[in-house]
Structure formats: C-alpha cells, structure tokens
C-alpha cells in the first residue's frame, strides 16, 4: 500500500514532508510553544490564571491592603435584620450574611479553587494514567477488571456519588479510618473517584492504539522490556493527551468542588469557597446581589480561563483539531 496523499490534505494537516525540511531543529515542545503563542485568547487566559495564582498566593497581603481579614466579622455592617450591606469604599464587594468582607473571601476562595483544581486533577490524572496504561498495555484480565471498574463508576449518577462520598466523609473524623478528612481532602477524594475514569479510559484507548504502532514493535524487536516500552516509548507519547485532558478537567474539577461546596459537603467553614458563598447567597439573592455576583463571577471567569487555556493547549498540541 502506498500512502500517497493529496497535497491539500497534507497541508491542512500542517506537517507535510515538504514543509518539514524548512523547519529546523525544533523539539515537539518548541513547536507547541510556537503554536501556543499565536493563540492570543489562550495567552490572555494564561495571563489571567497566572494573575489568579498570584492573587491566591498573596491573598493575605492583598486583603489586608484593600479589605479585611477573611474571617473577621463586622456585625455593624449588617442592618438590624441581619441583612448584609453592599459594596462600599471599605468593603469593596460588600459583606456577607455575618458581616465578613466578601472581597477578601473571594480572594481566599481562589486558593480553594486552585488547590482543588490542581490536587484533584493531579491525583485523578495520576491514577487514571497508571491504571489506563496498565489496562491498555497488559490487556487481558487486568484490562477487564479496570474497564469494568470504569463501567461501574460511570453507571453511578456522578454528582450523587460525589455527594454521597463527600457527605459520608464530612463527618468529624472523616472516613476510611480517618485517612480522608472532611473538607479539602474529602472533596478531592470525591472528585478523584469520579474523574480518574475519564482519564483512565482515554489513556487506555491511547495505549491500546499506541501499542499497536510499529514503533512499539520496533522497540520490542530491539529487545525492550515492558517497562522500557511503557516508560520510554509509550509514556512520552501520552504527554500530549495527558496535558490536554488535564487542562480540560481542571475547570470541571473547579466546578465540581464548587458544586459540592454549594451543596454543603465541600470545604469546611470558616474557609471561604466560592461554591459555599453561592450557597449562602442563595437565600438572600434578591437583596444581596453582590454576594452571589462576585464569587459567581470569579468562579465563572476562572473556569472560563481554564477552558480557554485548555482549548489553546489542545489546539497547539494537536494541530489537526478543527476548532
């Protein structure tokens, strides 16, 4: 079989033989960076995320410069009915229902979102990658077990499952013999239990197709053991999908954390979390718009930025995507 392809197609794919010779000495990562930098929107999103990270890190100094400590209460900012007052020069985003500075709490909420996003993503990706690779590479009964496990997990109504795990583990000493503590730990566990399956499935599929690639046969023909093949041949090829799907599930994880906190089983008070602020705001939304608008807006922007970044990363890593 010959693989003569028509020129138009080759060029649409952006990596034609003819073109390749003009580009010299670039590693795949350099290529990625060149492409990524062209995507202005993704670049702005990256900027926003960097800013957000800085805000989260320096939430303390910022809030003491422009606001008040996140857990300090200012009952005199509540009227005699206990309803909060709106934005003012000393409380930029107004106060919440017990007189805390919404501005500071939004800043501190960024910490939670980012921590969860990064930790939960890292752990679920880690588990997903390992199990996906094991299943895809060794196939057989290992694959059967892992795949069925994924099937079962996906057969659960996921939010209910997360809610159940989180509410079960949000009891005093946590669950699993105290290994999982209420709050951040619980949220992360709930997210990981659900999310590893997506990564696992994708990685498994990738490995299944990669292991049929001739370069794997070539490695085996060269005398490579399974370990070598997995780590030196397959893993480098998974980096791109791992990065892409990590950036895509980060925003999902942020949303899931917020949803769990919204439902009251997430981050433990008095830590500020955007989801919990939204939940608290629900009962007074018609009078205290600032209380849902600011945390909600922050959540929306953050998720949006991660989504945009994810799109940009995906496009840059996989030039064939059509978005």
């Amino acid at each position, binding site marked *: 079989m010959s693989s003569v392809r028509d020129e138009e197609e080759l060029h649409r794919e952006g990596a034609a033989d003819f073109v390749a010779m003009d580009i010299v000495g670039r590693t795949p990562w350099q290529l990625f960076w060149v492409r990524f930098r062209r995507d202005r929107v993704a670049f702005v999103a990256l900027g926003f995320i960097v800013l957000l990270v800085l805000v989260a890190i320096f939430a303390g100094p910022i809030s003491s410069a422009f606001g008040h400590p996140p857990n300090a209460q200012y009952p005199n900012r509540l009227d005699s009915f206990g309803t909060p007052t709106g934005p003012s020069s000393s409380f930029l985003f107004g106060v919440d229902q017990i007189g805390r500075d919404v501005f500071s709490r939004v800043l501190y909420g960024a910490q939670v979102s980012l921590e969860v996003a990064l930790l939960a993503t890292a752990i679920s990706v880690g588990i997903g990658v390992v199990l996906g690779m094991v299943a895809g590479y060794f196939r057989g009964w290992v694959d059967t077990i892992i795949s069925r496990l994924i099937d079962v997990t996906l*057969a659960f109504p996921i939010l209910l499952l997360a809610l159940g795990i989180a509410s*079960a583990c949000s009891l005093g000493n946590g669950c699993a013999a105290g290994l999982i503590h209420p709050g951040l730990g619980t949220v992360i566990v709930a997210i990981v239990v659900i999310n590893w399956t997506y990564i696992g499935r994708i990685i498994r599929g990738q490995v299944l197709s990669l292991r049929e690639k001739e370069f794997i046969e070539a490695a085996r023909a060269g005398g490579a053991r399974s370990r070598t093949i997995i780590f030196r041949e397959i893993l480098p090829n998974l980096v791109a999908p791992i990065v892409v799907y990590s950036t895509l599930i980060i925003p999902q994880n942020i949303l899931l954390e917020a949803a769990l906190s919204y439902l009251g089983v997430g981050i433990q008070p008095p830590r500020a979390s955007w989801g919990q602020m939204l939940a608290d705001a629900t009962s007074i939304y018609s009078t205290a718009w600032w209380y849902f608008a600011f945390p909600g807006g922050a959540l*929306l922007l953050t998720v949006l930025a991660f989504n945009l970044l994810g799109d940009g990363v995906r496009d840059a890593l996989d030039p064939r995507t059509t978005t």
Partner: protein
Amino acid sequence: MGAYIVRRTLWAILLLLVVSFLTFVIFNVFPSADPAALRAGRNATPALIEQIRRNLGLSKPFYTQYWIYLKGLLEHFNLGYSYYNTESVKSEIFSRLPATISVTVGGFVAWMLIGIPVGIISAIKPRSLLDRIMMGGSLVAISAPVYFLGLVSLFLFAQGTGVLQWAGAAGSYVPITQNPGTWFNSLILAWLTLAAAFAAFYARMTRGNLIEVMHEDYIRTARAKGLRESVVITKHGLRAALTPIVTMAGMDIGLLLGGAILTEIVFNIPGIGRYAYDAIVNADLPAIQGTVLFGAFFIVFANLVVDILYAFLDPRVTYG
C-alpha cells in the same frame, strides 16, 4: 442483534446489581446520621433506638441487610421505606418523576434546539465573526455553573424577586396536569439554565464534528457528483456529524432523568434530584439507595438504548 440485546441487557442488570451493592457498602460503611435515632425521635430512650435499629435490620451484618434489600427489590420491585418518614421509596420516586421529566425533557428540547443550529451555523462559516461570537459565548455558558446561572436568572427574570419580572412562578413548580401554562412559566428559567451549558457543549460538538466531516473524502465525492451544497451539508455532512451527538444526547438525558440535582435545588423543583439530595442530607439509606439505583438505571438504560440505536444510525457497527 437479538443475542446482542440480550447480552447487553444482562450486563446492564449486572451493572445495576454492582451499583446497588456499592451504594449499600458506601452508605453503610460511612453513614452520616444514625437512622435509628432519626426514626426514634427526640425523647426516645436508647432502648427504643436499639429496637428500631433491630426492626430496620440495621443491626444485622450489612451483607444480610443487602440480601434482604435485594430480595425485596427482585421479588416485589420494592425499594424499601424511608427511614425518615417511612414512606415507600418507590412511590416517592415515581411521584417525583413527572417533575424531573418536565425539567429534563424541557431542558433537553431547549439545548438541542439551540445547540445544534448554532453549531451548524458556526461550522458553515468557521472563523467568521458570527462563529467567533457564538463559540465564545458557548465557552462562557459552559464555564458557568448552573446554580450561578440559576441565581442570576432568578435575580434578573423571576417574577416576584427578579429585576425584570419576566418568568412567573419561577421557583415554585406546578405540575403540567394542574395548569400547563403555569407549568411552562414555572419551568422556563430552569430549562434555559439547565440547557445553557449543554447547548453550548452541543454547539461546539456539532461544529467540530461538522467541520471535520466536511473534510472527509465522501463529502468531496458528494460535491463531485454535483449535489447542491445545501444537500451536501444537511444530508451528507449532518448525517455523519450528528450521529455521535445522538449518542451523547441519549446518555445525557439518561443521566439527567436520574435527577438534575443542582437545577432542581436552585429552582425548588420537587424532583428526584432534590429527593436524592434530601435523602443524602437525612442519611436516609433506603431513599439514597433507591435514587442512586434509579439514576443508575437510567444511565445504564440510556447506554443500552444508545448502543442499539447506534446500530441503526451507523451501519458500520456490527453486533454479533
């Protein structure tokens, strides 16, 4: 094909059994409130609580409890009785199903009607201004959590509380049998809110698929044989581009029929999602078990239906 359906159905049943078992394990190992104490009331003695614990079978080993539960389920399709108010979980779920179906199906119609046309329009002129606006907007919609959108829409539009007083009866569900007009009014915001992220996602999917399909060789063939461009797009392009979307739609609606938890909570809709949430908060194991199983049933069933449907939509899929 028949054998395939049988096999898949058996697998679906097995899955549900596993799900029910795992639910049982999870909520038995990590119960959040003591159901016997809940049931016993404020002034009850510890002895009464123990007695109730025995009556509810809570003192038996959990596998025995599970076996009893399973027997009831298989023999009488009995999902048990709530620890919380001793109501039949099955009848509770079924009586809430209309509300959930109202939200879900309405949302589904809304997101399909919005998402797919938007996707097609975007795909026809990729990178045009319209495309960019629609895709940018869709990303915003995807990024907005439903409870935030819900609050914003209530704040802006709900009659009584909203700035614009547009959607009446929002926040108070009225069954369609009672008054279709009010039913519609009470759900319109919930539909749109629920549909927003889905519509956006479907728009992006449709657009991506269609653009990809339009680069396929068979589209070139369709053009080469002299078909109108409109036919090429709507018949040859969409037929292939929408097939995977049908699959997704089936799965999504299956997932939501088990309860659109967040939407039902934000808009106070007495559906299964809300019931499930309340059940978890009340540590009402039979209700949790029932709703999880019910949700899982829809997920598994939707998967099954979608797989079979796919055989009709995509002739390349063979089942044996």
